[in-house]
């Protein structure tokens, strides 16, 4: 079954200030959907709200994953469904090694933890330490395979999570996490920002491989640049807390030529067009 993430007339606020003002958007597995918009338009907020950040309050509308609302789910429950948010600014967690963290995350998402708990409840016996985790040997094998496949240095495994990472290393780390967690739908928040051309290639290559494996991607970006490397199936234009236009790759090209000022100038016209498109 192809997973679908549908955002319906979504309104969200932070501290009484409305940021999302009626977002409509659908992302499907296997598709790359680019979401382009100027800085401050609320693109990142959309990513956070989909992932379940507690700081934002959804005031109306809905987010459906395969037809079921996920609004009441905790961030970890959303991750277990197969939703992944690649952060624009991944948080550094000192003292927690990349490998330990990822093993715990993979074990949770793949159900090792739930199975261990069920087993314990069924047998009434206390679980052994580590039984709720993916076996170390298997985990390491897969981690190293994926590090090689996604061009991530094996030394990452022992380093502390994002601690002292360069901008490029953080983004590579996000791609590696994504590759290990195998989400159905990933939201990639400005995964291209702050990257030099080599890092951009590595990150784009990683996204392409995962999409080829069946992942759906919402690519949030300010610039056209990453779209030279990751070809979108759809492009939506985000402006002032809403999607104002959805089309094919040509929309990105047009934006590149005319800039976001054009969106502002033709907002009324675009609304009209959108109504026509939506029929």
């Amino acid at each position, binding site marked *: 079954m192809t997973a679908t993430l549908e955002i319906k007339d979504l309104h969200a606020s932070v501290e009484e200030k409305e940021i999302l003002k009626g977002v409509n958007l659908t992302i499907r597995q296997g598709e790359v959907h680019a979401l382009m918009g100027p800085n401050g338009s609320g693109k990142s907020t959309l990513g956070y709200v989909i*992932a379940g950040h507690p700081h934002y309050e959804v005031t109306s509308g809905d987010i459906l994953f395969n037809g079921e609302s996920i609004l009441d789910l905790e961030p970890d429950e*959303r991750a*277990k469904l197969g939703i992944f948010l690649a952060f624009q600014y991944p948080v550094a967690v000192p003292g927690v090694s990349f490998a330990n963290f990822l093993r715990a995350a993979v074990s949770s998402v793949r159900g090792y933890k739930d199975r261990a708990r069920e087993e314990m409840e069924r047998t009434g016996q206390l679980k052994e330490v580590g039984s709720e985790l993916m076996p170390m040997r298997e985990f390491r094998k897969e981690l190293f395979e994926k590090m090689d496949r996604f061009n991530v240095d094996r030394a990452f495994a022992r380093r502390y999570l994002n601690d002292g990472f360069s901008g490029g290393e953080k983004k590579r780390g996000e791609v590696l996490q994504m590759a290990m967690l195998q989400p159905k739908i990933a939201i990639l928040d400005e995964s291209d920002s702050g990257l030099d051309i080599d890092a951009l290639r590595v990150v784009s290559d990683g996204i392409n491989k995962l999409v080829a494996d069946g992942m759906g991607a919402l690519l949030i970006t300010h610039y056209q640049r990453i779209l030279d490397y990751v070809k979108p199936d759809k492009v939506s234009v985000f402006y002032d807390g809403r999607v104002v236009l959805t089309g094919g790759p040509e929309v990105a090209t047009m934006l590149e030529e005319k800039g976001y000022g054009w969106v502002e100038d033709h907002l009324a016209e675009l609304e009209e067009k959108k109504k026509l498109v939506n029929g």
Partner: protein
Amino acid sequence: MTKTMIATPISVAAVKAISDRYDEPEWLRQRRLAAWETFEATPWPTYKEETWRRTRLTGFNLADFGLPVETPETFSSRDALPEHLQTELDKVDSAGALILQDGALIYGELDADLARKGVRFTDLRTALAEDEELVRVHLGALVATDENKFASLHYALWRNGAFLYVPRGVAAEKPFQVLVVQGPGLANFHHSLFIGEENSEAVVIEDFMGSQQGMSDSVAESYVKQAARLHYLRLQNLDETAWNFATQRASVARDGLYRQLQASWGSKLSKVWIDLEMEEPGGHGELLGLYFPQDHQHLDHHTNQNHKTPRCTSDLLFKGALDDHARSVYQGMIRVHHGAQKTDAYQKNDNLLLSDHARADSVPGLEIEADDVRCTHGATSAKVPEEYVFYLMARGLDRKTAQRMIVQGFFEEVINRVPVPGVRAKLEAEIAHRVGIE
């Protein structure tokens, strides 16, 4: 089954009885009596004293504790030891081990090769019998009898302790391990005396355990002679109904290195002084601390980095997590004496608050009388950052697991600097236990 302990009350008669029982030399008997006099002449501390402003002795009554009378059973081999003690010793690959039960040596072992090289690792009582002069010169020369009321009490009533002497040029690769076990309701006065001669190297681990409804009043003195390297890892695992008082001091001679870890897990209330004396140029001192009080535990640490001489470095890092209604106090001082130029001293205390009811007081301090020095200090106290939790949750970890992982990560900065793998594992296990992972 709880064994009923036969105990005698704390009094001047008890002080004399200890001297009589062990047939102690006259100088020691006189020192004990003088210490008792100082103890009696010193008022109990009150909150009016700066060092006691944040730690109250409410509910503490010396009459509640007795001194041990029975002689516990001794053991001739590791295999014969009670299982829990054997397990504890086996966690660390050591060059020697001592177990003291209520001041009696119940088990001892030492690597034969190190013994041949002149290493002495035994209980203080044996050291006193075998090398009275060495003990006389060093005992009480770093931590004075009148240092504080608890030190006075300690010098009046100490019964035994751990003694390590590493001769010139001898390096022990494996650590020396001491288990200090205390029975319920008793007062114990463990004395640690460590001497690292010129160019020697050693790691000593002391583990304090037991003392249900009891008290521990210990003193530790470490001598780091020229270019010697001494690492002292002190793990306080006392029962959470115990009162704990400890005065610890190390002196570092020219080009010496001293590193101490204080891991404070147990006790109902702890008041711990840890002082580093940089006596001669070129020395390096490092003080590491870990604490993780829960429920109503109250843990108070005082540190002093005392730079008396030029070109020494010292580095302090104390990290604590606090849960429930727990309370911690950290008071630190870097003191750079007149003329101690080119001192480089650092002091940092970080606290992680896991509950709205927990409280961490941190009072870092500097007193600098030299003008060409580099001294930095800092203190932080914060809750687990919500952004960290969200990031880990977005990867599929539930809130509890995410928080645990962040807390464990928080302590890694200290644990990383502990030189013994077995001790690192012990520390990690204790932290895992405290964050709720069995």
